[in-house]
Each structure stands twice: as structure tokens, then as C-alpha cells.
């Protein structure tokens, strides 16, 4: 079976949906972070797929964007984890239902 664009898009959509579901349903902050990472991975996969099956698949262009995106995701994960730790220290919990200080 030869890989096609549709196949990759189906996989990335699945990945995105799983991530969204995780981010929306789980109550633990770290799981939410994991969900976000999954959605980012799905977006990266789309980049690569559209590059690979696009009209001009020259080597560096799409890959570079994906690498950037991964680096940003890493930074975001670091900031997110640091926030989680700071929140935990402050509230002694990471349950997002209890973190409702921002409510109007």
C-alpha cells in the first residue's frame, strides 16, 4: 500500500482529535499539557505531509518549519511544566477545576 496524502491527513486528524479530547476531558494539568503536545504533533505531521506531497518537495523548506515548531513545542512544554509546578506549590493541587481564580 503506497502512502498517500489522505492517509497522513487521516492519521493527523486522529492524533489532533485524541489530543483535543485529552485536553478537554482530563482534570490533571499535566494530561492537558500532553494533549496539547499531541495536537502540536498533529500539526507538524500536516506540515510534513503537505510538503512531501506538494508541488515542489525541495529538501529543506517544510522540514525546517517542522523543526522550528518542535523547538517551540519543547519551550512551551518547559514553560507549561514550570507553571504546573508553580501552581502546585501555591495551591497544593493540579486539578484544573479548582483553579478558578480567573473567573470574572
Amino acid at each position, binding site marked *: 500500500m503506497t502512502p498517500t496524502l489522505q492517509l497522513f491527513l487521516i492519521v493527523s486528524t486522529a492524533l489532533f482529535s485524541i489530543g*483535543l479530547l485529552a*485536553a*478537554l*476531558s482530563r482534570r490533571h494539568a499535566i494530561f*492537558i499539557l500532553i494533549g496539547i503536545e499531541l495536537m502540536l504533533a498533529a500539526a507538524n505531521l500536516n506540515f510534513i505531509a503537505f510538503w512531501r506531497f506538494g508541488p515542489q518537495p525541495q529538501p529543506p523548506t517544510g522540514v525546517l518549519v517542522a523543526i522550528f515548531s518542535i523547538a517551540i513545542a519543547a519551550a512551551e512544554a518547559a514553560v507549561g511544566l514550570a507553571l504546573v509546578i508553580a501552581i502546585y506549590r501555591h495551591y497544593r493541587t493540579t486539578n*484544573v*477545576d479548582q*483553579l*478558578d*481564580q*480567573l*473567573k*470574572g
Partner: protein
Amino acid sequence: MNPWIVSNLWLVPAVPLAASLVILSLTNSRRNSAAVLATFGQIIALAVAIVAFLSTLQTPGFRAVHNFTWFTFGDQTLRIGWVLDPLAAAMMIMITLVGLCIFVFSVGYMAGDKNITRFFAYLSFFSGAMLGVVIANSLLLLFVSWELVGLASYLLIGFWIERPSAAAAAKKAFITTRIGDLGFFLGMLWLYHNSGSLLFYDQGRGCLEDAGLLAIGGSATFIALLIFCGAMGKSGQFPLHVWLPDAMEGPTPVSALIHAATMVAAGVFLVARVYPLFSLGAVNGVTPSLTVVVLVGVVTALMASLIALAQFDIKRILAYSTVSQLGLMMVSLGVGGVAAGIMHLIAHGFFKALLFLGAGSVIHGLHQEQDVRKMGGLRWIMPVTFLTYAIAMLNLSGVPFFFSGGWTKEEILHNTAQWPVSPLPDYLMLAGVILTALYMTRQMIYVFFGSKRPAVEAHESPRIMTMPLIVLASCSILFTLVLTPAWPWLHAYLNGESARVDFGSLIQPILFLSFALVAAGIGLGWFIYRNLGERDPLARAQPGLFRFLENKMWFDEIYEETVIVFCRILSRLADWLDRYFWDGLVRLFAGLGQAFGVLSKGLDDHGINAGVDETTSGTRGIGRLIAAAHSGQIQTYLGALAVGMLLLLVLYAWLS
């Protein structure tokens, strides 16, 4: 003609002024640099003054001016400048020479003072300002320098600011001289109004030259009298003399430089400078303004020498003696003897500075004791001071022969005797000569003769203080060479003539008369005061008179009861006016403002505020509604985000 020195005459006052500025920027620890700088500035000024003096010798009656435009205001051009003539040159030499001696003396006298840099800065500043008075060729420039001199005097009298008496004396001096200066200023305005120029000499157009004097015409008497008010204040003439004895609160070198030798002579100099105004329209050498000058001078001279008889402060005796000598100079100017007056001014500058420095040396040697009753028998302990003081005393008393003061005083008496109006001033001046000899003998006996009375150990002053004494004493003796009738060089120099040698004129009847009077005065003094008891001999003989004189004829008390009480009543009236009249007006306007405010507040509260309140409450209701959607639950937000995304996608798909 020596254009370089004339156009650069400003250097003479500028150098001490610059030195003063540099010294002011020094810290208090740079004591030596301050003294050296000030002295050095004075030496340069002296050198330039000598160059200027030499160039005036070229022709008799040399006069050169350098005028320039200061600023233009509309179509009025204000020009100032400086003048080099025998009067200015002689004064410059005297001021810088006496100043130099006093600067050197101060190094020793003020050695222990912690503010010595400030002292030398002020002293240099004074010297510069005074030289500015002397070289000014414009009444305005003269007035500016005149006021700077007054400021320097104020600063130096109050030099020991921690003493309340010094601060009070400084204020008194400043305010009293200001009263005179007000007249001076008005006279200056009047002069400018009439002649259109404040320059003294301006190639025929100056206010002291023919065209200017013609324009002034009949008002010259009033202008001259107004200007004389300034001279009265500065030179301590009756009735504005009260500040000068109090000015002795300053350090003694200051008294010597400012309140004896130079500044107080500025009034005499001023009258001599604007003499054409005084003598305008003179009949037989007499004008109303000159007669006023004579009267003021006579009253001042006699009154001050009487008061000097009953003072016990060594410096106050000298201060009253200065007042009386200045009166004598005024008399001389008034009767037409301008040259004689200036000669006496210069001779007086030397020997009075010497007297004050000698007094300073005595005060220094006795550890700040100023009461003559606690001195005595100092002639062996302080020989140099004693000898130089004796020379100065003989000068002041008017002994001729080797003493310049005697010759100049004799010349003044000679001029006074020829005054056509009345012989009275001459008689009174002759009485003044006796009195002068009397009070100086009294002071000499108190301080240097008799038994030793000081409670503290006395000592002769160091070399740096005795050297200036010796220099000044030599000056006052050597100065005689150019004064005597045998070779009246200075007289001729000041009058713009050339002098002849004529030994025959040494013999004059009035010379013998004045010498006899001086001898009588000194002899009488010796007779009265040779045996000093517990109380002053005069106080024993005439207690009432003595009290009258000791209290300075109650001038201060009289002024306290009249002028100052009047000022107080006036100020109380002004206070009342301010408090009840003007304040009432202000309150009225304030009340109006307040009423208007209350009105506008009501309008605001009931008219405008209601609408604004409606708007705000509506806004708040909407805000509360929206806030309810803001739950703080991140996942709710995220869900809303996802739903929104989905809707957008559907919209996109449906549209395309």
C-alpha cells in the same frame, strides 16, 4: 597720550575682582593660597596703577577717557567708560598701596580665623569695587561700583556672623548708606533727564563739560545736593554718621581699609569728581550747594571730635576721628579747595590706615582687648607699634614738619580762612584742630603711657604685622615731600598746573597759628590726662557733659525714638491696611467665588449627575451579565474554542 593704558585701565579693578572670584572657589583649607592670591592681585593692580600714574605725568592736566557703548535700548544708547586723570591716578595709587599693606597685615591678624579664605575673597572684592569707583567715567558705572563697595562693606562688617552685634552693625551700615544712596540715585536720574548723558567727559558732550552743564542749568543745585546725599551716607557725614562707629564690629584690617582709608573717602571723592556740578554758576566761588557741603562738614567735624573725647573703645575713638576728618575734607571741598581736600584724603588714607593697623596690633597683642582703660604702659612692650602709632598720631593731630597730615590740614585751614561767606567755619575748624590733638593725646596716654594695666600678658606683634606699619609710617612721612608749600607738586598735579620750587612760601602766618594750636592741644591733653585716675578726668570735671558725649550725643536713641518709631507706625498702618482693607477685598472676591461654586455644585448634582448615573448603572448590568460567562474553568474556555473552530470550519466549507 598712552592709548594702551587708557583703554586697558579696567585691568586695575578687574585683577582684584578676578582674584576674589578664584579665592571664593577655594576650600577653607587653602588658607595660604588665598592670602597669596589676594596679595598678588593687589600687587598687579598696584603695578598697573603706577603705569597709569606715570602716563599722567606727561602733560599737566592730563586727561584721557575711554568710552564705549554698553547697550542700546530703543533709541537710547547707554555709554560707559573710564577716565584717567590726576584725581583717578592719585586715588588708585593710594588705594592699592594702602590695600597692599593691609592685606599683608591681615595675614598676621587673621591667622587664627577659620574663614580666612572668605575674608580675603571679600577684601579683594572690595578693593576691585573701590578701584572701579575711582576710574569710572560715567555716573552710572560709578554708582554700580559704589553699591558693590557698599555690599563689600556689609559683608565685611558682618564677617563674624556668629556675633549678633556684628550682624546688626552690618545691617545698620547697609540701610543707613542706602538712605543716602536713594538721593544719589534720584540725582543721577535728574542729571540724565537734563543732560542726556551720564558720562563725565565725552569730548565736550559729557555732563561735566560745558555743553552738558549748559543743559543742566538751574537744576544743578538740586542735582548736586541729591548726589551729596549719597556722599553723606558713604562718608559718614551728619546726620547719617551713625553707622560708621558701629562698623568697627568688623575685623580691624577691614576697619583700616574700608572704614578709614578708602571707602568712607569715596563720598569726598564723589564730590570732587562731580565738582563742576557743585560749582556751576558760582559767584565768588560760592554756590548754595557748596555752602550746604561746608555746613554739613563743619557740624560733622566738630561733633565727631567732641564725641571722640569721651569714648573708651580704641577703635571707636579712631572711628569718630575718621568722621571728623571726613568732615574737614568736606569743608575743604565746600570752600573751593578741591586739591587740598583730596590731598588730605590721601594723606589721611595713609595715616588713618596706620592708626587702625596699630590699634589692630594692640588688640592682637592684648588678646582682643579693645577698652583703652584696660591698656596702658605699652610703649616698652610694643615698641614698633608705639613708634608708628605716634607718627600717625602726630600726622592726625596736624603737626607739620615731617608729617604729611599737618601740611594738608594746614592747607585746608588756609582755604577755609579765605571763604568769603563767613569766617565762622574757619574758627570752628581751628577749634577742631585743638580737639583732635586733645583726643589723640588722650588716647596715646591711655594706651601707651602710664603704668601697665592689662590683666593679660601683652606682646609685640609678629613681623608680618609690624612691617606694614613701618611701610605706612614711611609713606606718610615721605608723602610730605610733595605736599609742602616749598614744592607743592601734588597740589599742582591735581590742579593740572606745573609746580615751582619756592622755599620762601614755607613761612606763613597761618602755619604758625595752626602749629601753635596743635601744640596747645597736645599740651592741654598732656596736662589733663597725665595722671589718669580711676575715672576719666573729663568725667570727674564735667560728669553731665561727659555722659552726653559718651553716649554719642544720644543720636542712636534719638533716631530710635523718631525715625524708627515713625517707620514702625507706618508699617503698622500698612499692616492694618493689608489685614483689613485689602484682605477684606480678597475675602469678598473669595466669597463670590464660593457662592458660584455652590450654585454650580447643585446644577451638577441634580442636572448632570442623574444622566451619568443612568449610563453607569446600565453599563454595570451588562458587565455583570458578561462576567457570569467567565467561569475561570480553563477547560470550558478550551471547549468553547474548539466549538468556535468547528463552526468556522463549517462556515468555510459551506461558503466555498
